[in-house]
């Protein structure tokens, strides 16, 4: 019974909104807001075709690989910087500045270096996604509990043991906060690097539709981008719940305590 009511609560409003859109746009004469039925049939025509390999796949692969490279770099740099008070004091202002540069301005800069190919787009995504992961990793490692640190030393943990069983799990809640921020920046950068200069990709295709006034097709592209964003966020959310299940439990226990 409770499962059913939770399910109904979850699907009620989205269904209502979709139905509302469907009926409100039915027979719409407004050029910019075509009927939802038209958008959905355009969606099937446009994306269930060679485009899924030629445009969607390259975009998604660039995003996934750029994001993973940035995450790896953020961890690899963030852990040593977070562990050393002195190193942190030297590099923190520089990192704060680099983080504060709005990532989209990287697009025109990196075009100069790497042209408009895949390398540029990868570099854009990596250099935009790096900062939230890096700074959150530093913050997470810096805030590790001292008593736990003393415990690892008192029980003679190896360096690897300290990293795997103490530093990374202890910093994980903040690392995931950084990963979330990075993901939304990564998607923005994936889209605009393709809009700014590209010959394939979702962003490129949508702009082509817009310029040729293929409105239902353009709408279908917007929906596709929404889906891509949602799927990436869901995958990250799934990993986060797996990795941080202890953290959510701990938080809930603390909440019930007070």
């Amino acid at each position, binding site marked *: 019974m409770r499962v059913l009511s939770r399910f109904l609560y979850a699907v009620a409003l989205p269904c209502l909104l979709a139905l509302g859109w469907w009926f409100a746009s039915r027979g719409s004469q407004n050029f910019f807001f075509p009927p939802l039925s038209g958008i959905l049939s355009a969606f099937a025509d446009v994306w269930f075709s060679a485009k899924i390999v030629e445009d969607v796949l390259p975009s998604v692969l660039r995003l996934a690989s750029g994001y993973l490279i940035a995450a790896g770099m953020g961890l690899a740099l963030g852990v040593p910087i977070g562990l050393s008070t002195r190193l942190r004091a030297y590099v923190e202002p520089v990192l704060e500045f680099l983080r504060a540069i709005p990532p989209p301005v990287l697009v025109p800069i990196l075009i100069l270096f790497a042209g408009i190919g895949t390398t540029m787009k990868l570099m854009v995504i990596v250099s935009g996604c790096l900062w939230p992961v890096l700074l959150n990793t530093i913050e997470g490692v810096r805030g590790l509990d001292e008593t736990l640190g003393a415990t690892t030393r008192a029980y*003679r943990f190896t360096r690897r043991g300290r990293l795997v069983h103490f530093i990374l799990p202890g910093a994980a809640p903040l690392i995931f906060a950084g990963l979330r921020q990075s993901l939304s920046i990564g998607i923005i950068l994936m889209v605009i690097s393709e809009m700014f200069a590209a010959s394939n990709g979702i962003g490129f295709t949508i702009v082509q539709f817009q310029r040729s006034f293929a409105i239902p097709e353009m709408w279908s592209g917007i929906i596709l981008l929404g889906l891509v964003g949602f799927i990436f966020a869901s995958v990250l959310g799934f990993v986060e719940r797996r990795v941080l299940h202890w953290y959510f439990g701990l938080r809930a226990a603390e909440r019930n305590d007070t």
Partner: protein
Amino acid sequence: MIEDRNAATAQGRPTLLDVDAVKMVYSSAHRTVEALGGVRFTVGDGEFVCIVGPSGAGKTTLLKCISGLLRPTGGTVRLEGTEVKAPPQAMALVFQDYARSLFPWMTVEANVELPLKQAGMARRQRRDLISSALADVGLTDVGSAYPWQLSGGMQQRVAIARAIAYRPRILVMDEPFAAVDAQTRADLEDLVRDLWHKLGVTVLFVTHDIDEAIYLGERVLALSASPTVVMDDIAIDLPDARDQIGTRSLSRFGELRKELYGQIQRARHTSG
């Protein structure tokens, strides 16, 4: 001089831990603070020694020096005749803050197991040690729970299980029961006495509670306020079998308590 320091070591047991003139001076650009002013004492093999001192008496600093977490600025600490320069394998620590000394991302079992794994012990042997340690502290069926699902007293039992599974020669406990309620505390005190008897491990127990020190220890060392030194070294001549009601109502208990209390008051007033 050596004989003098060993005089209080009970029944002439061989020395296990030798704390020799340990000094700790913190200096920064602005000021210098002398936390430990030459602490010296020894602990015999198999002894139960309590250290009691007013708050701010550098008890935690002293323990960090003894356990090799901190290098003293003067003097030496020797365990089994070897100078302690890093945390020694023959020593296990139990911290005051149980909630922060257990890894919240690991189950109770994994918490007990991890130090053994780090020491490269075979899986079979680890399993045996974990189950016997958890049984010894009275936690047989919470192995797969997370520490934060347990009460404070149970969490501290897990920390004790982790320490004894490590099979140390000496168990060092830093105000381990300061944060639990009175009844739990009494239970845990009896647990530590029992484990000491059963395992034959040496125990160095730090507390700010005079009653607890007398109830638990064979010897009590009273610390002065900082710069800390050992002011007094009292043998606790209470019967070996102790219980919370009987022992605490002995007249000898009261005398010892009065003596130690006086010492500590004096310590607070001379330098506090």
